[in-house]
Structures are given as structure tokens and as C-alpha cells.
């Protein structure tokens, strides 16, 4: 394995992300933070939502920001570079096995998702306070869950970016990401679906459910209502990460070699 090449590619992605920092910032945070403001502040203060909703919302917003960032950071460049600009050819011709180019993309996407997740906590906290409770009782569990969520978003980005045609980008957002977010227990805890027993089972195929519930479990450990058990969350996220990475690498190979 040629680590020099690998880290040079990572340096390139960091360089480009830094150059586009403001754009990335607006793209990632504007919508979730507006959501936080309206639902967490306006609706709560006006009495339509209970105060406890603030603490439930924050981990969900963190999950959305991370998934959106990771998918965007990996999928969008891949779609453009494989189909339109062919920019990726330079990296495919670098002296390294082709699959490692994909692994590098996943690592860069994971880092961006992690940063997005860690930045959105204080930002949302500022908008929501007072009344929001965020505590990290087990830093190790929190780190594990956050890392698995970040990895899931980047692997998902790889699988989508190598499967979606350029003309179907809009469809990718409306048919894949939007339902994932709405049925991903991001704006409500999984137990809120108790009165919809079938839906409650069906949403378990959505990896974002485990991301939101996992973050909720580690950030708001004394819930007024129960969450999905953490061990189940860790197992499910690990399985989704592995599956999406395998699918993504296979698709990447198919795109890279004729």
C-alpha cells in the first residue's frame, strides 16, 4: 500500500474543502439551524412543543448535518468526476490500487461529517438555550457512535455517488435522502412511533434511525422516553457501514474500469 499517494490525495481533499469552507458551511448548517430555530425555539416558546423537545431535537439535527455533509462530500464530486469532468482519472492513474482512491474519499467524507457533527452541537445549543440538556456521560460511547455515523454517511455517499446518474441527482435527494431524514427519527424519537406499530418496524431498515437514536442515547442519557438500546445501535451502524462500503467499492470499481 502506497501511503504517500494516499495522504497526498487526502491533502488535496482537505485543501479543496478549506478553499470552499464558507460555501460548505452555509450549505451544511443553514437549513438545520433554521429548523432548530423554528421548531426548537419558536414552537417551544409559543407553547406548541414541550420544553423537553429541545433536547430530543438536537441529536437528530446533528445526525442530519453529519449524514448530509458526508453524502454530499463524497457523492457529489464522484458523480461529476466520473460522468462529466473526468477529473478523477488523474487519481485513478496515481500509483496506488484503485480501491484505495475510494477509501480515501470515504476517509475525507468521514472527517468532514465529523467536523459538521461537532460544530452543529454548540451552534444548535446556542440557538436552543436555555432549557436544552446536552451531556456526554460516556465519551467513548459518544465517540464510537459519532464515528460510526460519520463513516455511514461517507460510505453512503460512495455507494450513491457511484450508482446515481448525473441527471438523477435531484431524484437522489427527493427519493433517497429526504425520506431517510423524515423517517429517520431525526425530528422525533423512535418511541414516538409507538402508536404506528407497522411504521415503527419498517423504519428500522433506515440507517439514519440508528444514527439519531444512537446520538440521542449518548447525548441525552436520561430521557423522558426510552430510546433504542445502544448495543443494537452500535451493531446496526457497524453492519450498515460495512454493507455500504462493500457496495460502494464494488460500484466504484465498475465505474473506474471499463
Amino acid at each position, binding site marked *: 500500500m*502506497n501511503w*504517500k*499517494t494516499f495522504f*497526498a*490525495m487526502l*491533502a*488535496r481533499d482537505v*485543501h*479543496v474543502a478549506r*478553499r*470552499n469552507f464558507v460555501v460548505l458551511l452555509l450549505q451544511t448548517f443553514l437549513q438545520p439551524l433554521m429548523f432548530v430555530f423554528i421548531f426548537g425555539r419558536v414552537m417551544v416558546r409559543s407553547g406548541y412543543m414541550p420544553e423537553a423537545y429541545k433536547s430530543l431535537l438536537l441529536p437528530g439535527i446533528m445526525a442530519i448535518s453529519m449524514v448530509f455533509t458526508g453524502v454530499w462530500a463524497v457523492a457529489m464530486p464522484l458523480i461529476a468526476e466520473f460522468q462529466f*469532468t*473526468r*477529473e*478523477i*482519472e*488523474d*487519481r*485513478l*492513474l*496515481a*500509483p*496506488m*490500487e*484503485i480501491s484505495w482512491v475510494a477509501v480515501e474519499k470515504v476517509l475525507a467524507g468521514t472527517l468532514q461529517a465529523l467536523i459538521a457533527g461537532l460544530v452543529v452541537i454548540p451552534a444548535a445549543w446556542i440557538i436552543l438555550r436555555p432549557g436544552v440538556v446536552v451531556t456526554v456521560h460516556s465519551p467513548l460511547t459518544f465517540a464510537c457512535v459519532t464515528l460510526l455515523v460519520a463513516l455511514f454517511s461517507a460510505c453512503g455517499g460512495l455507494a450513491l455517488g457511484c450508482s446515481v446518474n448525473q441527471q438523477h441527482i435531484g431524484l437522489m435527494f427527493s427519493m433517497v435522502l429526504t425520506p431517510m431524514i423524515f423517517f429517520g427519527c431525526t425530528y422525533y424519537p423512535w418511541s414516538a412511533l409507538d402508536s404506528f406499530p407497522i411504521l415503527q418496524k419498517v423504519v428500522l431498515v433506515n440507517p439514519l434511525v440508528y444514527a439519531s437514536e444512537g446520538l440521542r442515547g449518548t447525548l441525552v442519557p436520561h430521557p423522558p422516553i426510552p430510546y433504542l438500546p445502544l448495543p443494537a445501535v452500535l451493531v446496526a451502524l457497524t453492519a450498515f457501514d460495512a454493507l455500504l462500503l462493500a457496495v460502494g467499492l464494488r460500484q466504484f470499481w465498475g465505474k*473506474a*474500469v*471499463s
Partner: protein
Amino acid sequence: MVGIRTRDLRKIYTSSPPFGAGGFGPPAARDKRKKQPKPEIVALDGLTLDIAPGEVFGLLGPNGAGKSTTVGILTTRVRPTGGSAWIGEHDVWKEQVQVKRLIGVVAQRPNLDFSLTAREILLFHGAYFGLDSQARAVRAESLLDRFKLRDRGEQMVRGFSGGMMQRLSIARAMMHDPQVLFLDEPSAGLDPQTKLLLWEIIREYNQTGKTILLTTHNMEEADALANRLAIIDHGRNIALGTPAELKASVPGGYLLRLRFGQHSPDLLQQLQSLPGVREVRANDQNGADLYSDHGGSLIAGIASLASAAGVELRDVHISEPSLENLFLHHTGRSLRE
């Protein structure tokens, strides 16, 4: 110095071929009664090449002849259906990383990194190939200079003209000083001045002992650069040799296109007897195509035969021996078709 070998290389696309590798012929007709799920496009049909170390080798052929597929296979980007290919002693498909270290590739269509400036493109490319930062900076500087891009170094390439992108693509391919350089249609769409600059740089690079494989359907370019040429059509090698050898292999070599005031079969018969004339073909209306060993010196004889026959000679056009004539001779089709 590193050479290139292919043995009986075959490539059949079952999905649409990549850009620049069109394959030839219509997809095999689908018969609905038989189960034939995918149309097959044969792009290479047993191509064998031996390119010596340090040689400038040209692949000449019309669009869809298999040129880009050959380059794709030799640069690890296309998986051959059959046969084998080596760069130096390395099997291209089995030892991809070693092969990628030896080669530099300029694709048919610019594929520069749009998120970077011209200088950054060179610097990061150098980093991918493990050059240390000082070596990268020095090499990038000299390449920007050589390709007349020094004042554009800090600009994003998004706004570059086609010619500038092509120059930068070639500079990038040379950044890690590869032993073998692949140029797929290097001067397509370039203005004459840039084309000459590129030719000069390509020759210069070759003089440092590097092997160069270029594909083109421009015979002028093949003539100007290549030590040897393979003419390929329908994925097969149909002629191989130096440009001079290949041109000499066309019977006669010279083509005189004549136009007369009126049609006269007797005159065409008499033209056949002029010294050096190999073949006379009547063309449309009152003209004739005359293939011969020499060009201008025949005109006096043609004019006197015409005047003796009472036929006015209205127009003469002489084509010198060319690869175009050669291609026409081998395939019955023009290179530009």
C-alpha cells in the same frame, strides 16, 4: 528505457464504451427470440504491437478504430477481453501499480482537477507520485515555464481555454517524469502555433530516452512526430512501418486529379501509356484520377496528349504521397470518414 508490447489484444464492450473509445460497427443485432441480453461492440480484434524503448510510435486510424481502447488498456483503465499487454516487463493488468509509476497519460478530453489552480494541479500530481515538496516545486515551475503557462499558474483551470487545458494536461503527465508517455489525440482542436509548441516539446521529451505512444487521425501529425506508425482499422493492425515506408508502399504514391473540357475515353486510354503512370480511373463528369510514380513532370505529357485529342485540360491537382492516400489504399475509405 521502457518499451510497450501487446499480444493479440481483444476488447469487446458489453456496455457503452468510455468516451473516446467508440468501437466500430453497429452493435450486434438483437434477436428477440434468442436470449442475448447485451449488445456487443468489438473495439479491438487481435491487436499485436511491439514498440521499442525510446520510440515515438503513432497509432493512426479513423474514429472508432480502436485507438483509445488500446491506450485505455495500456494505461490500466480498460480491462482487456483477451490477449495481454506489457509496459516494460510489467503485465499491465496484473501489475497495475508498477505500470502506473512508469506511465504518463494525456486523455483525449481534458480531465484537469477543476477545484485547483494550474500550479496546484502539477504540485498535487507530483505528490501522488511521491515527489518531495522541493522537487515538486522546481519541476512544476519549469513545466509551467516550458508550456507558457507561468502567468496562469495561480488561476483556477475552470476558466482556461481548450489549448491551455491541453498544455496543462501534457505538463501534468510529464510531472513525474514517466518513462512512457501516452498522448491520445494530443493536438485535436489546437491552434497551429500551440500545435507546433507541443510537437517541439514531444520531440524534446523523446530525446531524453522516453517512449511515446500517440494516437491521431491527423496524418500531418503522425508524419511529423512518429518514428513508426501502425494504421489500425476495425481494431486490427492493417499496416506498420516508418511514415516514409508506409507512403512508399502505396502504388505510385502521387495522385493527379485532372479535369477536361469534355469526356474522352480514348484520351484516358492514352494517358495510361505515359511513363510512370500506374492507374487511370475516370471520375465523375469529365475528369480522371491518375496514380503515378511522380507528379508535376507528367503535366507536359498530359497536356500534349489532350491537345492532340482536341480536348481542353481545365484543371490539375497534384497530391504528394501521404498517409491519407495510404489509408485510402488499404481500406477504401478516407481517414476522415
